C-alpha cells in the first residue's frame, strides 16, 4: 500500500489546482465554478483561443502549459476522468478570440464526447470552434477497434507549435490544419516496469511478474496488450524507436519528447534520451528540439514514453518561439 499525499476528503484535485494557481499567480488565473485555468497574459496578435484539457493525474499537463505562447485555458477533470462539458464550455467562452476557439483533445472517448458537447454549445452561441484530435500512441493502432490510437505525449508538442502559430496571428482554419499536420507526423509508445498507485484503493493498478515489462501502456494506468521479458535498456529503447518510426512519416529532422510516467527519475530519463538520440543519429535523423522530463505522467507509474514528431517546413521556428508557462519557458 502506497498512500498518496492528498488532502482529506474528495476535493484533492481542486486543492491541487488552488495550490498550482497560488504558485503561478503571475501566469494563470483559477476559476472555481466551474473549474478551469486561464492565462493572465496573451499575445495581442492572437485571434483564436486555444483550450485543452483532460483528466487529472497528468500534471503538469495541461495546466502547466497555460501561458504566453501556449494555451489560453486548461480544463482538468477528476483523476483519469474527462472534464465535464460545462467546464470546457465556460473556459472556451472566457478565452474565445475574434476568430473563435481551438480545442486540442486527446483521443479518448470521454474527452471526445465532452469536448464535442461543449463545441455544440459554443456553435449554438455563435462562437466558431474547431478541434485537433491528438492520436499518437502506436500501441493502440489496430484494425480491430473503432477507437483508434490514444492521444498521449505528442499533445505537448502540438500545443507548443500551435501556441506559437496563434501568436503570429494564424486564423482558426490555419491553426486547425497545422495541428492536424503536426499530429499526423507524431508517434509515441510507452512502457512501464511498475504500475501506478490507484487513487481509489491505494493499491498498485496491476502487478507484473519479476523481470517482466509492460510494453504499450496508456497514461491512465491502462495495461498494455502484452508483457515482455525485460531487455537491457539499450535494446528496449532501440525497439521503441523502431516501433515509433515504423508508424511515423519519413524525415530527416525531428522533435523528441522523452516523458516520465510519474515514478521515473531524471537520471533514468536522460539515459533513455541519450540512447534515443543515438538511434536517431544512426538513422540520419537530426534532433531539432527536445523535451526530457515528466510532462504527462500516469500518477506515479514507473515508466516512460518516447514521442517523435517529424518536422515539416517552418515548424522548428515555431517550436523555438518564445513561451512562458509554469513549466515550459523559452
Amino acid at each position, binding site marked *: 500500500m502506497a498512500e498518496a499525499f492528498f488532502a482529506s476528503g474528495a476535493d484533492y484535485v481542486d486543492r491541487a489546482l488552488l495550490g498550482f494557481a497560488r504558485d503561478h499567480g503571475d501566469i494563470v488565473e483559477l476559476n472555481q465554478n466551474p473549474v478551469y485555468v486561464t492565462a493572465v497574459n496573451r499575445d495581442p496578435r492572437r485571434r483564436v483561443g486555444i483550450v485543452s484539457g483532460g483528466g487529472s493525474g497528468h500534471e503538469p499537463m495541461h495546466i502547466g502549459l497555460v501561458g504566453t505562447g501556449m494555451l489560453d485555458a486548461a480544463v482538468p477533470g477528476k483523476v483519469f476522468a474527462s472534464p*465535464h*462539458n*460545462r467546464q470546457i*464550455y465556460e473556459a472556451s467562452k472566457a478565452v474565445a478570440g475574434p476568430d473563435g476557439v481551438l480545442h486540442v483533445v486527446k483521443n479518448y*472517448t*470521454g474527452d*471526445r*464526447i*465532452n469536448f*464535442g*458537447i461543449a*463545441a*455544440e*454549445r459554443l456553435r*449554438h452561441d455563435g462562437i466558431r470552434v474547431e478541434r485537433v484530435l491528438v492520436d499518437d500512441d502506436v500501441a493502440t493502432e489496430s484494425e480491430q477497434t*473503432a477507437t483508434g490510437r490514444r492521444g498521449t505525449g505528442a499533445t505537448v508538442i502540438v500545443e507548443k507549435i500551435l501556441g506559437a502559430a496563434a501568436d503570429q496571428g494564424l486564423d482558426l482554419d490555419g491553426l486547425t490544419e497545422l495541428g492536424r499536420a503536426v499530429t499526423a507526423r507524431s508517434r509515441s509508445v510507452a512502457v512501464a516496469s511498475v504500475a501506478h498507485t490507484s487513487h481509489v484503493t491505494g493499491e498498485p493498478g496491476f502487478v507484473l511478474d519479476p523481470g517482466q515489462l509492460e510494453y504499450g501502456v496508456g497514461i491512465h494506468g491502462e495495461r498494455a496488450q502484452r508483457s515482455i521479458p525485460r531487455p537491457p535498456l539499450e535494446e528496449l529503447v532501440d525497439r521503441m524507436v523502431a516501433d515509433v518510426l515504423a508508424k511515423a512519416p519519413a524525415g530527416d529532422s525531428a522533435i523528441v519528447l522523452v516523458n516520465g510516467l510519474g515514478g521515473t527519475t531524471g537520471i533514468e530519463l536522460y539515459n533513455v534520451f541519450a540512447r534515443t538520440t543515438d538511434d536517431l543519429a544512426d538513422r540520419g535523423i537530426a534532433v531539432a528540439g527536445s523535451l526530457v522530463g515528466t510532462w504527462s505522467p500516469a500518477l506515479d507509474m514507473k515508466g516512460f514514453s518516447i514521442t517523435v514528431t517529424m518536422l515539416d517546413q517552418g515548424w522548428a521556428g515555431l517550436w523555438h518561439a518564445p513561451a512562458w508557462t509554469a513549466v515550459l519557458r523559452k
Partner: protein
Amino acid sequence: MLMKTYLDAAEAAHAELTRIDQVAGDGDFGDNLRDGLRGVVSRLPADADLATEFDVAATWFLDEVGGTSGPLIGLLLREIAAELAEPGDEDTALVAGLTGGLAAVQRVGEAQVGDRTMVDCLAPTVDGLRAATGPVDWTATAAAALTHARATADLRARMGRASYVGERVLGTPDAGAMGIALLFWALAVHRDPAARDGLTDPAHLDG
C-alpha cells in the same frame, strides 16, 4: 406539463433502467435520468410553455447531469428547444428539433445505428416521423420508439462502456435507448392523456 410527465415515466421506470444498465454499464443511468428530470421540474415555472420547458431541461441536462448520456440528452433537448422558440406549428417544430437533435447526438457521440446506444431508438423513430404524412400520431410514435429501444437487446455494443462486456449484454436492452423511448411516451401522453391506457406502462419496459 411535459417534463412532469417525462419525470413520472422515469420514476416508474427507475428500477428497470437501473437493472438493465447494471448489465452493461455502471448502473447509474436510471439515477441520472430521474434526478435530472426532478431538477428540471423543480425549476420550471407553473405557466411554462413547451419551448421554455425544453429550454430549461436542455440547460439543466447539459450543465448538471452526470455521465455521458445525460449531457447527450441535453443536446437533443437543446435542438428541440431552439425549434420550438421559432414561430410556427408545434408538431413541425418538434419533428425538426428531434431531427436536429439526432444529428447533434451523432456528431458528438459518433454512434451509428446498430452500435447499441440511444441512437438505436432515436434514429428509426425520427425516420418514421419524417416519412409519415398528415398529422403526427404521437401515440403510434411512442409505441414504435419502445419497439426500437427493445430491439437493442439483440445488439452487441460498439460504443461506450458496454463495448467492454461483449456478448453479456445480449438479451437486455440498452438503458439510453429506453430513456429516449420514455421521452416519446411522455410526448404521447402530454398530447393525449388517454393514450396512457394504450401504451406500455413505463414500469415494464423490458416486456
